């Protein structure tokens, strides 16, 4: 403790001094955040213990003890023929094509890769401020690109070989289901939310009924119903593609959740905003488009992205109706006699890939929130 005489200054002449060293910098941060009270100190010690006991084993499994090179499962077996207790990355590299594309024919993979490249280029064009023509890029992404994807993936026209949807699989199928579900469920959800808040009793009843029905049943039963029961109600000979049925089920299910998220945002907009818009002569659609929706959607970005991330992971449930998404392919690969028992590596890889996508969405949403922040 320093023993200085407190120096006095004439009023108005006090110089700007530096803050005490123990309150700034690393020392200051540690003091105020980690050891500021007995409880905090105990929590800090506990946290250090947790990191010490959890992080090294995880790193060992994924990186340090893992086998990285090889073509067969033998490289991952120890002397007795048992499986090593760490990740066996050759499992991923040997099965990589199936994990990424399912059973899509090798010769046609360029079609999928082409759409990936186009999508990445479009997103880049939309994200970078220097690139002009954003309106046209947006129209391309929302209207033309989906149609293009449909023709490229399914084939059967324009001289392209037809590839049945039962051959689609792996991460490709996961992305098709997730992106279709995400992009379609948001507009439907907005319409349902507006309908639920409508003054017209029939509209409101229909929207409430729809939301409560689709929210009240598990996604597995929705997929099961769409796959098994739906064809029973169709007239003889009329069939819908199984993937299409799954897409519709997933989209409507997600739209019901999205409707409630959006409704929460709409409720938070003060009545004064509606009145200010109406007093200016804006009719209902213009008021919604310019004033209410931008504010409401911005408020519930966390909820919307939450629902998207949930949907992305829920796509794994399509395995019960015989569609082999990314996780389904991991499970299928591990049933191969040569690779029996390596499913742990597969799940570890799946967890990593899902985490990258979901964390990416989460970071992007925070970026959007920061960009839209206008200080109110």
């Amino acid at each position, binding site marked *: 403790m320093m023993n200085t005489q407190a120096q006095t200054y004439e009023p108005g002449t006090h110089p700007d001094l530096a803050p005490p060293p123990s309150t700034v910098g690393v020392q200051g941060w540690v003091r105020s955040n980690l050891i500021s009270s007995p409880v905090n100190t105990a929590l800090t010690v506990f946290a250090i213990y947790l990191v010490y006991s959890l992080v090294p084993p995880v790193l060992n499994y994924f990186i340090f003890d893992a086998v990285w090179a090889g073509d067969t499962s033998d490289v991952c077996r120890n002397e007795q023929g048992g499986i090593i207790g760490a990740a066996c990355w050759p499992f991923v590299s040997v099965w990589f094509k199936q994990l990424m594309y399912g059973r899509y024919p090798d010769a046609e993979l360029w079609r999928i890769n082409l759409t990936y490249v186009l999508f990445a280029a479009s997103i880049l064009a939309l994200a970078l401020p220097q690139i002009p023509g954003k309106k046209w890029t947006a129209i391309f992404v929302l209207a033309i690109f989906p149609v293009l994807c449909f023709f490229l993936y399914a084939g059967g026209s324009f001289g392209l070989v037809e590839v049945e949807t039962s051959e689609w699989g792996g991460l490709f199928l996961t992305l098709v289901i997730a992106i279709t579900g995400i992009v379609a469920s948001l507009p439907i959800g907005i319409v349902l939310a507006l309908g639920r808040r409508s003054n017209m009793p029939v509209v409101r009843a229909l929207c409430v009924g729809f939301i409560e029905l689709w929210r009240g049943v598990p996604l597995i039963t929705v997929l099961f119903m769409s796959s098994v029961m739906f064809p029973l109600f169709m007239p003889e000979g009329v069939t819908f593609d199984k993937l299409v049925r799954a897409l519709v089920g997933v989209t409507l299910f997600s739209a019901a959740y999205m409707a409630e998220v959006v409704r929460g945002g709409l409720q938070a907009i003060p009545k*004064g*905003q509606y009145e200010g818009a*109406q*007093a200016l*002569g804006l009719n209902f659609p*213009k008021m919604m488009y310019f004033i209410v929706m931008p504010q409401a959607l911005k408020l519930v970005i966390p909820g919307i992205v939450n629902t998207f991330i949930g949907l992305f992971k829920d796509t794994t449930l399509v395995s019960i109706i015989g569609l082999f998404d990314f996780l389904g392919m991991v499970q299928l690969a591990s049933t191969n006699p040569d690779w029996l028992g390596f499913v742990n590596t597969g799940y570890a890889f799946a967890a990593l890939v899902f985490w990258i996508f979901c964390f990416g969405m989460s970071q992007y949403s925070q970026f959007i929130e920061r960009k839209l922040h206008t200080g*109110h």
Partner: protein
Amino acid sequence: MSESNVSEDDLKHPTKEMTVGDEVMIEINQMHKWYGDFHVLKDINLTVNHGERIVVCGPSGSGKSTMIRCINRLEEHQKGRIVVDGIELSNDLKKIDEIRREVGMVFQHFNLFPHLSILENLVLAPMWVRQIPREEAEATAMKYLERVKIPEQALKYPGQLSGGQQQRVAIARSLCMSPKIMLFDEPTSALDPEMIKEVLDTMIQLAEEGMTMICVTHEMGFAKTVANRVIFMDGGEIIEENEPHQFFDNPQHERTQLFLSQILAH
């Protein structure tokens, strides 16, 4: 009961002669309104001519805000007739939109759009309701921002402005639609005393330019400066209506006298 914050002597007195025309802008005929079973407006009769400035005062809950909100259909009336600029108010949405284009409204809590800049707030309605091209709308917006003396704030967001500045932006926003009538619903009630004067001076300037105005306010100094008529409402009825000096110096009705004694006692 809030008193008048700004006295007559502190406000800018209008320099031009303010005339009242013959054309009837608003006609309210035997209008009644209920909220459920509660009879909130009883037999309202009011005629407003072109260029008239009406101040409506009264205790809280007297229905004064409700009455002016009926004029641009922010509230619905159940009985009687309201005719604005020759158009009768009914459930016809097209007519309501027509009326709302001609009637501007300034709210107690400003109701600016926080996610848009000041300039965007001002050009939104002219561009998308009156289909005015962007350059013209922006020029008009800057002109009105200069009129309310805050052109430098054009690119800021409402959250960055003070209350008085926000209310002046709200006034400019309504003016950008070139309305024939302006309604003010307690425009200074949410402001600090320093900012009230700047808003009232803006409103006096508007009155000078011949705008037809109905203003619900407690600012009696303002009423004495510009109003043609002061209307006192209580319990949903119009109790007394007179020109300002008669109204303040010689109130007829007992309830008016009580109200005036409460708000003018300092």
